[in-house]
């Protein structure tokens, strides 16, 4: 069992929703409202030491509901292991707290997720399109967006 599961269940009993083990990867589905607190705790607790956010990915699980997943991949240099956190967001208004204040590296990743998947990161210092032109309409990584463009 991954060492972070017990830690999170103890500190955030209400917010841990599901634990998925697959091919040696541990994914903990957590409440999106608590993501900033959880990431801060995982970063600062010496027995966790997840000081490095590897990436943030946005996934569209259409037609499932909640439709969007925001995936945080953490790495601990001290214990040399990985942890994946996932937050599920509704399709109608995918909004989640920005974690730029916890990890500076989240800046570009969140902008990319906003640009391509249309997920809004509340509190992001500069949330605007990063790869596409500013006047681009739509979010190309969503499943309803046609591959050949609109």
């Amino acid at each position, binding site marked *: 069992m991954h060492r972070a599961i017990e830690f999170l269940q103890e500190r955030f009993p209400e917010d841990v929703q599901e634990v998925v083990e697959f*091919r040696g990867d541990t994914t903990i589905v957590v409440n999106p409202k608590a993501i900033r607190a959880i990431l801060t705790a995982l970063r600062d607790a010496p027995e966790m030491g997840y000081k490095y956010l*590897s990436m943030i990915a946005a996934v569209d699980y259409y037609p499932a509901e909640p439709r969007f997943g925001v995936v945080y991949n953490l790495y601990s240099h001290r214990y040399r292991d990985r942890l994946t956190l996932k937050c599920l967001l509704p399709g109608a208004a995918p909004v989640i707290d920005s974690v730029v204040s916890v990890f500076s590296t989240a800046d570009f990743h969140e902008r990319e997720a906003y640009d391509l998947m249309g997920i809004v990161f509340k509190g992001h210092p500069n949330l605007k*399109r990063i790869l596409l032109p500013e006047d681009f309409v739509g979010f190309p990584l969503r499943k309803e967006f046609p591959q050949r463009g609109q």
Partner: protein
Amino acid sequence: MTPVLPEKQYDTMLLNVGPSHPSTHGVLRVLVELDGEVIVRAMPDLGYLHRGIEKLCENRTYHQCIPLMNRLDYLAGEVNNFGFCLAVEKLLGIEVPKRAQYIRVIIAELTRIASHIFWLGTHAHDLGAMTPLFYGFREREKIMDLCEMVSGGRMFPAYFRIGGVAADLPEGFVPEALAFVKDFPNKWKDYDTLLTENPIWKKRTVGVGVMTREECLDWGWSGPMARGSGVDWDLRRDNPYSSYEDFDFNIPLGTREGDVYSRYLVRMQEMLESAKIVRQALEKLPKGDIKVDDPRISLPPKEKVYTDIAALINHFKLIQEGVTPPKGEVYQAIEAPKGEMGFYIVSDGSGRPWRIKIRRPSFVVLNATDKLARGRLLADLIALIGTMDIVLADVDC
């Protein structure tokens, strides 16, 4: 022009570096706010090369994604394939035969040398030294010849397959590669002599772009960028994949504060370590298969396709439908020349990936441009972009 900077300041000047300038290493635009020659703010503007590779992958079989991955960091195309194949193999729950693992290591480490050489040449060229670029092409050419021997391709070899490699090493490859890595340290001395103690080079690089260890972690830096600041971390050693645990190599660390010069020293040492790994892998190269013996994953031998109906069916099904991993999500990272290259794959159980998110090291590192450049001279921006070793195809994806 759309207002990129929030408030207008009358005593500063806006200058566009790029999007098409030799020192930006591709189509990157950096909007710089200057106070005289001092940088007040530097805002990288990317996306000029965005090709939507993640979206394209969703409509292809896993095998058809491999040539797209080549085109991310095109200076180290084979390493991207390496990571992608490992991620799909993790999803499938298979491990490739030992010989294939060794061959992959050989090709990946040769590619790392080629990538670092190209970085060295262009970085030095940006800062005014031309000779390292010409010397560098000499060695890089040999590595590309070796790549051509195994795959027929030079820039985009696409030699790795899910479950192994496309073909066994051709005759003559092993002695030629051995000769190259044995001779490489002698050639390496040329670059070392040209730059390491060069006063102009040191003036341009020492104390520029300093990042502490903690800052590196906060900004998500990995690979040589982080090791230049003393982050003792290398995925090849700490989370070994593909038999890296069989080889004896060191992880060079920056001995000084993490500046441009320190990262230069780290990458220089890394080339020697890579040559060491290739040499060991060539000398210990095991015999055996070069791909997994599973008709649902590897194509059958061509002669069997013409003579055996079962093999023909397997061949057809694999080409049409591809591999079908179970439902699930995996993340697999490898140590690419530029740092941690990761693939997050969501599979819905069909033959096409539901979603692939690629963690590109260049993209992550570029995030810190503003932090590094603030308060430095405009000329230092060129050194900073150079030290990041970015490839814009990797940034934009």
